[in-house]
């Protein structure tokens, strides 16, 4: 029991980047445990994916060709059978929305402890030590897993993507999928967040978060955006509340934006938000909390009340 099994992530015909990051994280672990790194590729054009994912560090690739799209029952069955065949010490999965739709079920089936959303991993052959955040990124913790085997989901963009061409053997894994146990089926996909504006095209974004407190208060943000000739965007709670339409949401489940200037006002900088704006050229944060995680990626910051700073800033441009 020294091997590591990582599970690739893909959606609608595309292998997602976290798959290559899983290879890096898996290789690092396998180097410590002294075992091989196996990569599982389940559903979709598996041969095409296998070729792409065959990067340096992978020892074996197991493909399971069953259906085009993700189905958590197929994944759960395939991974538990692979686990029985390979007997890995650690299983790594992506902390993606789909990862969270099968990983906990796999852990339950296999009676493995599960750690989700790891941002760092260390092992000494016995204990697995995972780093993860708590309280929306305000603190980081180390969690020790005291078990022979464990399942971990990793946060995307925390490990570098594996590069280079690997020489792993690609092999179709012989699974038996019990069709009767499949109790859900995908009937379609929809793109949401279309409409009048495309915030990903904007050069300057004035982005507002929960710090605004009330819908009426949005007026001062609109005035600022107008004065700066900038586009208005927001964090998720503003959209959840129905104060702005979905096409204004920045983040993991909204839009990825890369403006010249991103002004984050009353936004804490949760990982799912940061995923959508960290590529901005210049990031300015206005937030009363000097410890807010947004400060880690901001270039400039004002630690003050937005209700004082925003009107003063608007005035500068009128």
């Amino acid at each position: 029991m020294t091997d590591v099994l990582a599970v690739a992530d893909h959606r609608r015909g595309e292998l997602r980047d976290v798959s290559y990051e899983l290879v890096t994280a898996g290789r690092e672990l396998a180097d410590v445990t002294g075992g091989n790194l196996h990569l599982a590729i389940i559903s979709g054009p598996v041969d095409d994916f296998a070729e792409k994912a065959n990067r340096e560090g992978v020892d074996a690739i197991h493909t399971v060709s069953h259906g085009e799209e993700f189905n958590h029952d197929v994944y759960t069955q395939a991974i538990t059978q692979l686990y029985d065949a390979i007997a890995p010490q650690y299983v790594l999965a992506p902390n993606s929305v789909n990862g969270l739709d099968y990983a906990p079920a796999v852990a339950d089936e296999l009676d493995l402890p599960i750690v989700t959303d790891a941002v760092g991993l260390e092992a000494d052959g016995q204990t697995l030590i995972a780093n993860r955040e708590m309280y929306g990124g305000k603190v980081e913790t180390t969690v020790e897993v005291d078990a022979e085997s464990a399942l971990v989901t990793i946060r995307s963009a925390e490990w570098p993507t594996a590069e280079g061409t690997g020489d792993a053997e690609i092999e179709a894994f012989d699974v038996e999928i019990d069709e009767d146990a499949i109790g859900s089926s995908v009937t379609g996909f929809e793109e949401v967040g279309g409409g009048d504006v495309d915030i990903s095209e904007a050069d300057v974004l004035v982005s507002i978060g929960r710090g605004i407190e009330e819908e009426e208060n949005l007026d001062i943000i609109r005035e600022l955006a107008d004065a700066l000739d900038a586009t208005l965007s927001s964090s998720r709670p503003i959209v959840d509340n129905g104060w702005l339409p979905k096409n204004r949401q920045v983040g993991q489940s909204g839009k990825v934006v890369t403006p010249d200037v991103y002004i984050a006002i009353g936004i804490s900088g949760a990982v799912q938000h940061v995923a959508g704006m960290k590529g901005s050229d210049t990031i300015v944060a206005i937030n009363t909390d000097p410890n807010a995680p947004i400060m880690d990626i901001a270039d400039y910051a004002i630690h003050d009340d937005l209700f004082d700073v925003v009107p003063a800033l608007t005035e500068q441009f009128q």
Partner: protein
Amino acid sequence: MSNGLCVLVPVTEVATVEDEFEIEGTAIADQYLGADLNEWDDYAVEEAVQLQEAGLADEVVTVTIGPEDCEQTIRQALAKGADRAIRVWDDALEGVDLLDVGAKTELLKAVVEAEEPDLVLSGVQSGDDSFGATGVSLASAVDFQWGAVVNGLEHDLEDGVASVRRELEGGVEELTDIDLPAVLTIQTGINEPRYASLRGIRQAQRKDLDVQTLADLGVDASAVEGDLELSEMYEPETESDVTVWEGGADDTAGQLAELLREKGVAQ
């Protein structure tokens, strides 16, 4: 009575942290902590209550793992319309500082087996430790179907099928049909959670809040020990080289304005 559904909603009280805080050992010092109903669970309660108002659910029951202190939070869910509550607690849970997914699953499984709900609506994650795994783990343990990160649920549930939207990354939603009984983990934004009315708050005081111990549930203490240990807590190292502007709002706004002008904004 109609043959409507029984809906079980796991409700968590989360710890909230003040802007300035200190860490003591492996926890944030008590005086900097507050407590609140988990944001995601608020949406799950609302969805359940709406199913009841639409005549699809007969009963909405909440279940919370937590000490007596969290009864105020449980009453919040009752005030919003849940019919009754179960609180699971035991001396054996007192010393456990990180109740892992497996342990929570064991406890909730016992409750599901006793209540036999048709639908379990949990939150996607709890806002404090953000594991995001208990709902799906529970579904697997009790042999229910499931869907994670659900931001839309059609209120017809005909033929024992739930038609849901799963929110994937990048503004893509997956439409999925899920057989009941099922666990759905509910994402924020699926509805607009109501504020409790004064009448609701008064009524909540009289609703059943049943406390269950491990023995009551027939769960062995060893089941909640878990394999995970929180061994360290620290403030994240930052590689940030942020320039912080100091002074009153007029000063800081002036400095920001200067920067923006340099960048050619509004010109």
